[in-house]
Structures are given as C-alpha cells and as structure tokens.
C-alpha cells in the first residue's frame, strides 16, 4: 500500500484535473438521461463547497442542484433565537454558543446585539471550552446554547457527561439539535416539492458527509426502499461531490435505486457507535420542532431526558422564555429557499437589504446558508 500523506487527503480530493475529468464523465453520462434531474444536497457544508468551487459551472444544463435545509443556524426559528437572547440578558448568566449563532437575528435582535446591550455572550470553538468559562466564573450560571445536526450532538452529549461526572454546578443546557432524515422525509412527503413540475421535484439526494460519519449511512435506507429515491453519501471536497453526482446519474441511467457511499474513507453503514450511545444516554427525541420555513417536523430534534431536567435551561427558565409564534420578515423567502423551492437570487431583498453585514434571514447569516454562499460565490453562475 502506498504511503498516504496528510496533504493527499486535501489536495487529492481537490485536484483540478480530477475535477475536470469528472466533469467530462458527467457530461457523457448525462447525455443518456431522458429528463432534467434535480439533486438535493441536504448539507450546508455541501452547499458551501458546491458554490465555492463553482461546480454548477461544470455541469451540463440537465443537472440541477436543489439546496436543502442542512444548515442548523438557518433553520433555527426566531422564537428559539429569542430564547437565547432572553437568557443572555439574565443577571449572572453567561451564554455560550458556537460560531455563527452570534449574528442570527431573532425578533428582538441577535446575540451580538444583546452583547452590545451588556449581555455576556461568548462564542467558542468547542463545547469543551465551556468548562474553562464555568471554572473562571463560579458565581455565574453558564448556559450552553447547543446547535447543530447529528455531527455536533455527540459533542454536546460529551459535555453533559463531563458536567454530570464532575458534578459541575453552574453549567446548564438549552438544546436545539436537529436531525436530518425526518426533514428529508417531510420534503419528499409534502408533495409540494415532489410534484411533476421539473423545477423542484427531487430526483436524488446527496447525503451529508459528517452527519453520516456519526450516524452511519443506515439512516437513509428508507429513501431508496420506501420513496424510490437514490441516495449517495458524499464527502465535501469538490472531487467527492463530482464523483457522487456521477454515481447518481449512473444509477438513474441504469434504473437502479440504491443507497451508495462515495465518502468511503470516512463513512460506513453503522457509524460511530460510541457517539450514538452518548446521544442515546442523555437525549431523546422531542415531539415537535418548528423548522424555520418548513413548519413542525415531528421527531426531528433532541431534548435532554427527564432525569436531567435539573440542567435543562429550557425547563428551568420556562417562566421567562417567550413562546408566541413569530412571523418572518415579510419579504424574506428563507422558507422557500430551505425547501428548495427557490434560489437565493430569486429573493427580492437578496444582496440589497439582505446581505451578510445586514442579514434579514438566517440563510444569509450562516456561512453554510444558501444565501450567504450565493452572495459570496454565486454571482458568476451561468443562470
């Protein structure tokens, strides 16, 4: 076996000649298609990669990407962002969360706005950084506002585990972890996206790279089996995505409908068992979770199990957390974009009133959001 260098794991899957090579193979294979096909990439990381590397410019006209709701910040409803806002402004509370959450606007403002009003909000690279903050501030209540898909859920579970094992008294959790297969099913079931109009019928899925590392590819079995939709689990490098697209087209041309793994070097059928066990130990599925633009998706989110209510900020602060439903900004079509019904440049406020420095909707704020990706990378697409 030839020696693998770390550099190969980057450059090998970004090689421009290989990307161009796949482009040629896809062109050849796509000629045999009897109709225009729409591939939904669920994961925000895929959207980002697709746009950053300009992949739509390399594909024939009969292959179209539909960008799915795989951005955990984008699908966060305003009501829950308001929870974070309200918690942050409580006396003696330090609100801790990851990256992009800082800038997402709720109905009262973003966490960045709360910070400029005097709230103590910290953004961390890892949930484990919360431990240091708690240690340095023993008299404060540290609330970890947890976000992310199945990729990130076990890391929060790990923090819960440490907090309980070490009996740390001043760390609490507000859980907003969501899961992928249920929302994929909703999109397929809703009929809206699956009607005969060429424009937004989903013909196949590109399965998320790193959700699948944790869960294993087994979570997508229902799509080829029940819905007759091929799924190819793809890595997020441009070569991975191109290879996965070729695999999808070949399936369609050969009248196969299967679950395949392109990202073999990191994804297998069963996933990370230990991570899954940690999730299972501390979390259970909540009945409902309102996804921004999509409405309620049953069993698509996690909450802390009842026996951990004593560290559940959503329960402990129930009295002050707002629960009324909030309408989105009138002209914001994030909902349609998240369902793959529209593309960002079709939004009337895209790039004008709504841009990264002044986002109206979540799709523009998060670096994985379709609107942010289009704004930064998508302006030279051949529409």
């Amino acid at each position, binding site marked *: *076996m*030839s020696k*693998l260098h*770390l*550099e*190969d*794991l*980057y450059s*090998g*899957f970004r*090689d421009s*000649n*290989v990307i161009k*090579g*796949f482009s*040629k*193979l896809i062109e050849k294979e796509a000629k045999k298609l009897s109709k225009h096909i729409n591939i939904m990439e669920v994961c925000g*990381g895929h959207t980002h990669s697709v746009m950053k590397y300009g992949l739509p410019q390399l594909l024939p006209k009969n292959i179209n990407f539909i960008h799915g709701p795989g951005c955990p*910040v984008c699908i966060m409803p305003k009501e829950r962002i308001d929870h974070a806002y309200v918690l942050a402004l409580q006396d003696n509370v330090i609100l801790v969360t*990851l*990256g*992009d959450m800082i800038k997402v606007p709720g109905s009262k403002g973003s966490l960045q706005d709360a910070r400029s009003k005097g709230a103590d909000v910290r953004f961390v*690279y*890892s*949930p*484990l*950084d919360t431990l240091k903050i708690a240690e340095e501030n023993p008299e404060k209540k540290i609330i970890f506002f947890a976000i*992310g898909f199945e*990729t*990130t859920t*076990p*890391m929060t579970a*790990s923090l819960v*585990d*440490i907090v309980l094992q070490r009996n740390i008294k001043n760390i609490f959790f507000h859980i907003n972890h969501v899961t992928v297969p249920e929302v994929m099913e909703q999109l397929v079931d809703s009929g809206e996206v699956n009607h005969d109009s060429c424009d937004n019928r989903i013909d196949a899925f590109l399965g998320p*790279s*790193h959700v699948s*590392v*944790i869960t294993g590819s087994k979570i997508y079995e229902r799509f080829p089996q029940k819905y007759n939709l091929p799924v190819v689990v793809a890595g*997020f490098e441009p*070569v991975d995505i191109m290879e996965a697209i070729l695999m999808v087209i070949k399936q369609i041309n050969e009248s196969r409908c299967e679950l395949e793994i392109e990202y*073999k*070097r*990191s994804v297998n059928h069963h996933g*990370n068992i*230990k*991570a899954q066990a*940690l999730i299972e130990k501390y979390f259970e599925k909540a009945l409902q979770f309102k996804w921004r633009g999509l409405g309620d998706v049953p069993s698509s989110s996690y909450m802390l199990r009842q026996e951990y209510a004593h560290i559940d900020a959503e329960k402990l602060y129930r009295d002050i957390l707002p629960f009324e439903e909030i309408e989105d900004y009138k002209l914001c079509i994030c909902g349609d974009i998240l369902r793959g019904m529209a593309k960002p440049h079709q939004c009337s406020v895209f790039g004008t009133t709504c841009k990264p420095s002044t986002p109206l909707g979540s799709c523009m704020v*998060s*670096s*994985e959001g379709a609107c942010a990706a289009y704004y930064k990378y998508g302006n030279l697409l051949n529409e």
Partner: protein
Amino acid sequence: MCLSIPSKVVNIDKERNVAVVDTMGVTREAGLELMQENEVQIGDYVLLHIGFIMNKIDEADAVESLKVYNEILQKLDEEERQQVMKDDDKCQNRAP
C-alpha cells in the same frame, strides 16, 4: 461553523483523554471522548470537529479512491489522444 477536517495524530495523553493533532503544521488538542479506548494511535489520520476526534479515516479506502482518480485521468488522456489521432487522420490539408 468549522467543517470537519482531516488531521494527523502526533501525540496521545491517556490521562486527560486528549490527542494532539496536526493540520498542516498547526497543532492543537482534541478530545477522545467519542472514540473507543486505544482505538486512536499516533500516526492515524482522523477527522476533527469542534474540538473532538470524530472518527479514523480509512487509509486503504483513501488510497484506493486516489488510485481510481488517477486511472480515470489516464483513461481520459488516452481517449483524447486517440481522438486527436483520429481527427488528424481525417485531416484534408495533409499532403499525400
């Protein structure tokens, strides 16, 4: 949020349950809470996500993929050469 990135394990601290990983000359610590005991060894390639090691990259599969890509390129190159020769043969402007 940062994507998950391939890194190489350069050190393991069993007591604190952390590994030190290298990403192209930048090193940092990563938690081993999601990996089985002794599953991760120095020299392994792993995926890093928000401060934790998420899995081990299967080197054999990675090498296999890269090999396949190379073969695709070679095949395409060969086909192009054949096409150029074919076009050349049909060329009207050549002297007999």
